[in-house]
């Protein structure tokens, strides 16, 4: 075999892909349990729209059961299994959080990209000023007003969460762009005659994009907690959510305390796993410290 033989184009592409995958092996390994957890949550049995109002409705002769081997978390007043309900409720909350955080990251990236091709030193100032001024409004206050005042539709919850994620993320992204533009290679690329667009798209943007999965993984648990908090307050519509389950369960604190206890325990376990994985993913991708967007771990 001739060691100096030039490799074919597909072989080089494959090798390049393998090298990239090897560099990302930690994040990829962490993605497996993440996807397994999401898959397990979303594979919950049963179909149809479940409403907490109907499941927890007071009856003359309640048919609830305390936790036993058959029903680990007990049952509701209507006899529905609380474990399955908690699982379906968490699947809903996680789906909402995933969608909202993805949208929020996209929005932040879009806002920053409005100024990124500008060459002036002060190009990101308006974003930083806006984030500082609006940063005085606590995220959950804005969310509560938006969803509570608006009647609590799913679209409002997702849009509100996305806005709350996007606003504090903008200064983080601008800092990363500034950091990326400060390198010697960027200066050299400018001297070599590359256009601003080529430098930004080819050199500055890729490292920023590589860090975004870490941001996503770190923010999802906080968004899950926020969604549950809104549904606890009754501001997230009549959907099934752990927050709504705990709120309805508190009506039966004396007779059936498990209705308020076990769904919260389940939610704690899921958020703990998500935040542990999120923390490891953000460490593996070197995301760096993020602002305390919501009440997040």
């Amino acid at each position: 075999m001739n060691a100096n033989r030039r490799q074919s184009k597909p072989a080089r592409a494959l090798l390049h892909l393998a090298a990239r995958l090897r560099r990302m092996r930690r994040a990829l390994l962490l993605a497996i349990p993440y996807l397994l957890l999401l898959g397990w949550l979303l594979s919950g049995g049963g179909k149809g729209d479940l409403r907490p109002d109907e499941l927890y409705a007071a009856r003359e002769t309640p048919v609830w059961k305390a936790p036993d081997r058959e029903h680990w978390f007990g049952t509701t007043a209507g006899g529905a299994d609380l474990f399955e309900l908690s699982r379906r409720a968490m699947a809903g909350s996680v789906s909402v959080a995933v969608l909202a955080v993805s949208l929020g990251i996209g929005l932040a990236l879009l806002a920053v990209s409005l100024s990124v091709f500008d060459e002036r030193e002060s190009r990101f100032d308006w974003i930083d000023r806006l984030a500082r001024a609006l940063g005085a409004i606590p995220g959950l206050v804005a969310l509560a007003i938006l969803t509570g005042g608006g009647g609590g539709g799913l679209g409002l919850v997702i849009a509100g969460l996305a806005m709350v994620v996007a606003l504090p993320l903008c200064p983080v992204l601008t800092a990363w762009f500034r950091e990326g533009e400060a390198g010697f290679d960027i200066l050299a690329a400018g001297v070599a005659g590359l256009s601003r667009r080529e430098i930004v798209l080819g050199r500055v943007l890729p490292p920023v994009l590589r860090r975004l999965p870490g941001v996503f993984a770190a923010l999802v648990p906080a968004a899950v907690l926020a969604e549950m908090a809104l549904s606890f307050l009754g501001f997230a519509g009549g959907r099934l959510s752990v927050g709504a389950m705990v709120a309805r369960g508190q009506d039966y604190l004396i007779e059936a305390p498990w209705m308020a206890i076990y769904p919260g325990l389940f939610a704690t376990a899921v958020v703990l796993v998500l935040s542990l994985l999120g923390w490891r993913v953000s460490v593996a991708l070197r995301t760096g410290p993020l602002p305390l967007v919501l009440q997040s771990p």
Partner: protein
Amino acid sequence: MIRHFLQRLLVATIRFAAAGIALLALVEFSFVVPGGSGHHVWQVESYGLVPPELAPRPLAWGELLRERGSATGRVLFLVVPTVLLVGYGWGILGARLRRYRVASLLAAPFAAFACTPGFWFVGLVAIYSYFHWQRPGFAGDLVVERGPDLLAWWNAAVVALPVAAAGIAWQIRAVAAVLERETARPWTRGLFVAGANNEEIFYGHALRRAVPALATLADRPLPALLGGLVVLEPAFRYPGMGSLLVESIRLGSYPGVLLASLSFAALATLATFLRELAVPPPAA
């Protein structure tokens, strides 16, 4: 000095005004567009007297604000010093012992606790308190009429605990990250080669040089902590500003919503103003 004070005051006023305008726009949008309300924020008739659901006895808005504000003040009195003391203390310790990855270890219990939904935790406390101590569960169940109101402090502590946990976890990591970045700079190697020991380098140089960066972290968690109160106070039936906001939203009372949210915004702006007075922000 006076010039710096006036400059920061002007900036804080502009920021607060911007937050106020944003809140007015948010209330107008959310109640009128998706909410379908016929009242607009600019109409005088939208701002009536205190609804009876918000106060058990007739009160003016100012009195209600003072009453609810003092209850929230009690919670913040417990939360803010705890977050700052534990966050800075353990963050510095974590950075000092960075080779053993102590910062993550110190933050772990708080981060794990912050994963519990706070509204569920305060409900658990109420259940436990009712069944095991034979005491009133939620904050609104008993009012102390004579003697020192220790129960009010207990209620404030229950609300403060989950709020503080998230803030402490974040603060420990943030403080440790700032110090670890400082100790990773090339001059530390120079000092080490020159014969300085670890303690001297860390406490004598790195910590001293990192003070401005550390001070900028002091007010950062406050908006998120205040946001936590919006959920925890109603969950524990604690009569604070968070409860006022949620009850006002449910009743569609614009003055209640605006007073509570503007108070939160004013607190966050004031904290930033005080921090910027002490440590000017880095030039952009």
